[in-house]
Structure formats: structure tokens, C-alpha cells
């Protein structure tokens, strides 16, 4: 295995990415759920804080669908603060003075880890849709190889929201001995029909864009920006709540006193969504969007365990803390409750809190003092049981 610190990801279209990049699976390939294998493939990751002597303070943050490894630093493309800047940093809930925080770009992603945007070593061209279809199991498999590379036997905590929370569940099910504590947030043990339906709308929007070129746009010098923007706009609605949209925008008009009797963005909410769409295409790859949404759709921890979710966690010693948010209709509390019931059925060590919030599915990314306070308490309790020093 080779590691290149602060090394450029070979990208024609962007400046080198900060952070670390390592080639994994050189001696033993990552066998994917679809049957294909990834040999000697790149994983880009970022770390914050330092690993203690006995390597017991490592926290793996699993990012969501459109997230990446830049958790707590300005984004290299957009310049915006890290997506979990509120959570990760010195003295914050995930305190970088106590914990060693790791976040890796997921397999299938587009920020330096193996995915459709990267070069296929066999053809020396971008993978495009020839990249093998990946699963959440594959994402976690790649992260496990990264931990092997870093010499970390057991994670203190695996934490993430949404797709990140699904990875947390997969971690706890696939590698229970490597997970001291697990925090799935706004997650579910399977994607529901409604979840799959929304994703299909996004994928169809991308594939309907002529610039998608059957997935081979990179090699044709094009980008399906319109399709990807529409996908993002549709998805973004599902991350918010009716209450939040009403509070932010109501029926207010955008820079005008009256409607224009046309199809310009008369309403603030339209303008906002268009902005979200446009911003997104600068930093995200359309094919990655297809692959990652597919991975989420395929996720079914219950189905994989004979229809009994409890079987995924039998014998687990991991300490779980499950969070949901009252206004999250994409991954509603009921889905978290199913996880809790399964954990109860194996008498696992589990805490579960439904946080009052108006901000919908995105609540875990936003200011939520109650969420942070409760999570902080859970982490402190777990740290005590793990023998980590108390907060300073």
C-alpha cells in the first residue's frame, strides 16, 4: 500500500484536493457485493485531531449522499465551511482535542475516492457508468481497509446521519468488534418505497439530460448540469419540512412586488431551489449521484438478515445511541424506532432520543442544541466506559 499525504488527486478540472489519499486493496482486492473487485483503488480521506497512543480515540464520521471528507474545514471547491463544522472541532461535541476524527470520501463518490469520475486503470479513461455498482456494504468495506492501513483495530465511535447513519448500521452489523459505540442519526435500516421513488426522480432527471451522453459525458467534454441540478432541487425539498419552507420563504416574491405572469423565478422558494441546484453541479458528479442513490436504494439490513433486523445485531457489545428528528419525514422516527426495537430484541446497550426540530431531515446538520447536548452526554458516558480521559 502506498500513501501520499497532502498529495494532489489527479484531476484535470480542479486544483489538487487537500487531505490524504491512499491506494488500498493492492495485496487483497475489495470484493464488491455485485461480484466485481476493486484492486489498488484510491481512498481520499481527511483527519482532525490526533490518534492517542493505544489508538482508542478514533471516531469515524460517515458522510451523507452529497457530503465528503471535508467535515470541518472550508470546502476546497465551494469555500464554504465544512458540512459538520458545528459538530467537529476543538471544544465542540466531536472534540478534536479529545478524539481523532476520520472521514473518508465514500466509494462511488467524487472527491478523490474510487468512483465513476476516477480513471479506470484498465482503460486509462474515466470509469463513467462502467464503474461497478456499489453498495453501502462496499463503502464500509473500503473504510475497513482504510482502518487496517491506519492500524486502528477498533473505532471509539462510528457516527453519521442519513446515508452516513446507514453506514453506521452497516459497520455495527458487519464489524461489531471494531465498533465500540455507534451513533446512527436520522437513518433507517432499509430504504422505503418512498425513498427509492424520490431517488428515481433524481436519476431520471440526470439521465434525461442529453449532456449525460449515456454516462460518458466526461470523455465527451460535456456535463449534465441541468439534469443534476433538477435532481438536487427535488432532493433538497425532501431534506426540509413544510414548516421550515414556510418559515424561510412563505409565498414571498423574489426581488419583485408582483407576480410576472411568466415562468421566471417569481417566488423566493423557486429562486432558492435554483440556487441550490446551480451550486451543487460545481462540486458534484452526476454519475456519482446515480451510484450513491442506487447504493442507498439497495440497502436493506432487514432483508439481508432473513427479514429479522435483530439478527443483524445478535451478540453485539456496541453501545448505540439512535437519534431521530420530529419533522424528518424522509427518515421518520418510526424507522429509527425499528432499529431500537431490533436492538432491544438482542438486549443491546441502546439509547434513543427523538429530537424536537422543525428543520426536517437536515436537522442533524444544523443548530440543534438539544441534539448536541444529548450526544455530548452519550459520548462522555461511552468515553468513560472506554477508559478515555475526561473532558478537560
Amino acid at each position, binding site marked *: 500500500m502506498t500513501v501520499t499525504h497532502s498529495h494532489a488527486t489527479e484531476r484535470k478540472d480542479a486544483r489538487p484536493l487537500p487531505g490524504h489519499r491512499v491506494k488500498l486493496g493492492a495485496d487483497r482486492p475489495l470484493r464488491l457485493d455485485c461480484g466485481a473487485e476493486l484492486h489498488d483503488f484510491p481512498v481520499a480521506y481527511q483527519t482532525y485531531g490526533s490518534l492517542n497512543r493505544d489508538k482508542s480515540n478514533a471516531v469515524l464520521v460517515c458522510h451523507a449522499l452529497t457530503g465528503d471528507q471535508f467535515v470541518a474545514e472550508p470546502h476546497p471547491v465551494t469555500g464554504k465551511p465544512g458540512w459538520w463544522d458545528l459538530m467537529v472541532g476543538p471544544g465542540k461535541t466531536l472534540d478534536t482535542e479529545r478524539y481523532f476524527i476520520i472521514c473518508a470520501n465514500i466509494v462511488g463518490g467524487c472527491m478523490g475516492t474510487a468512483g465513476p469520475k476516477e480513471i479506470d486503470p484498465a482503460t486509462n479513461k474515466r470509469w463513467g457508468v462502467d464503474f461497478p455498482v456499489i453498495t453501502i456494504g462496499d463503502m464500509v468495506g473500503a473504510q475497513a481497509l482504510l482502518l487496517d492501513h491506519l492500524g486502528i483495530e477498533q473505532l471509539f465511535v462510528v457516527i453519521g446521519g442519513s446515508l452516513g447513519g446507514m453506514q453506521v448500521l452497516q459497520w455495527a452489523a458487519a464489524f461489531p468488534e471494531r465498533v465500540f459505540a455507534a451513533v446512527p442519526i436520522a437513518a433507517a435500516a432499509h430504504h422505503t418505497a418512498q425513498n427509492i421513488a424520490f431517488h428515481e426522480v433524481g436519476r431520471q432527471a440526470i439521465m434525461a439530460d442529453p449532456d449525460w451522453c449515456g454516462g460518458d459525458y466526461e470523455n465527451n467534454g460535456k456535463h449534465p448540469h441541468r439534469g443534476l441540478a433538477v435532481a438536487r432541487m427535488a432532493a433538497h425539498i425532501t431534506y426540509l419540512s413544510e414548516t421550515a419552507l414556510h418559515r424561510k420563504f412563505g409565498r414571498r416574491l423574489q426581488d419583485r412586488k408582483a407576480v410576472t405572469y411568466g415562468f421566471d423565478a417569481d417566488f423566493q422558494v423557486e429562486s432558492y431551489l435554483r440556487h441550490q441546484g446551480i451550486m451543487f453541479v460545481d462540486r458534484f458528479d452526476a454519475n456519482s449521484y446515480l451510484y450513491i442513490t442506487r447504493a442507498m436504494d439497495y440497502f436493506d439490513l432487514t432483508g439481508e438478515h432473513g427479514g429479522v433486523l435483530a439478527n443483524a445485531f445478535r451478540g453485539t457489545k456496541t453501545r448505540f445511541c439512535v437519534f431521530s428528528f420530529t419533522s424528518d419525514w424522509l427518515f421518520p422516527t418510526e424507522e429509527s424506532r425499528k432499529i431500537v426495537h431490533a436492538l432491544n430484541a438482542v*438486549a443491546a*446497550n441502546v439509547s*434513543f432520543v427523538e429530537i424536537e426540530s422543525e428543520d426536517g431531515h437536515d436537522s442533524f446538520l444544523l443548530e440543534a442544541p438539544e441534539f448536541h447536548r444529548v450526544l*455530548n452526554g452519550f459520548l*462522555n*458516558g461511552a468515553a*468513560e466506559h472506554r477508559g478515555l480521559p475526561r473532558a478537560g
Partner: protein
Amino acid sequence: MAANTARSIRADLQIIADMIEPHSRLLDVGCGDGTLLEYLDRHKHVDGRGIEISTEGVDACVSAGLSVIQGNADTDLADYPDQAFDYVVLSQTLQAVQAPKTVLGHLLRIGRRAIVSFPNFAYWRLRWHLAARGRMPVSNSLPYQWYETPNIHFCTIKDFVELCDAMGITIERSISLDHRGTMRRIGSLVFFANLFGEHAVFLLSK
């Protein structure tokens, strides 16, 4: 695991705590703000879990590092496997559940022993309140008006002993507390305890 030092706990919780062997596995159903769980963690190194219905209670517990889920006795006990715990505690909650008999059955299915405490509705002051004033009793320990009380299934010590008999439950220990907090063994003196006990604590097994 909050940094605060040991504090004194309510008399009925102290009785419960004294019944529990160190290093045992315990589920506290209706654990409130986690006072008992925290005490047991600190003093008896118990591997404790809790279920609590109120958001404030769950927040307080998990913030203090306790393992507690938001849920309730009527809906969440069915998931737990048989004999998963050494003790299942139901303190001051029996009277607030929808189906006390079903819940009691679950306690002794999930735990090798159950500890149940409840306010005795046959306590003489309550009897007096009802007899003399003709109104539902309101007291320091039962502070709710009838139209807003969460307590929907009151019972007496005698009622509870009879239910245990009917369900084939063994009463290993039984203690009553009067309004001064004085403990008395109930044993076979059910009539006496039923009149003078304001609260009762039962250690049960099947």
C-alpha cells in the same frame, strides 16, 4: 456518570436499590430522570438500561451518559427477549400503564426478578379523603386532579397481592412505607400494610 457526587435518593428508590445485587443487569421501566440508574451505576456497578416516556427525562438520562430509550411500558417491552436482565424495575409507573397485567407479565418474562413499587390507593389518608370529602384524593404524592392525572390504574396493596397470586408470581419481599418514610415488612400483614402503607415495594419472581 454526571460529575455530581452521590446524592440521597427518594426512600422508595433506596429500598429498590438495596434489593439489587452489585454487578447485575437491570432494566428500569419508566426511569424518569435516571436517578435510580445513576445511583446503581455509581454504587453497585450495575449494567443498567432505561425506558422513559418523557422527552425531558430521556434527555436528562442520555445527557448523563445513561443508556435510555424513549418509549413506554405498554408498547416497548414486547421486543425484549426472555430473561435478558437480572432485574426489571417498574417504580411508580404501574398505575400509569394501559395494561398493568400484561406489563407485569413482561417484567417477569424479561427479568429473572421484577421490582415493582406503586402508591397504595387504600392508604388511610386517601380513604379518608374519599370518604369524608367525597372527592378523588389529591395528596403530596398523588398531586393530580382526576381529569389530568396520568395515573389511570390505581390499585391497593391487597389488589396487587391477589394479582400476583392469580398470575403465579412469587412475592420474595414486600415492604410498605408510611408518610414519614418508615419502612415495614408487609409479609402476611397485608391488612395492616394496606391501611397504613402510603407506598409499597415488591420483589417478585416467577
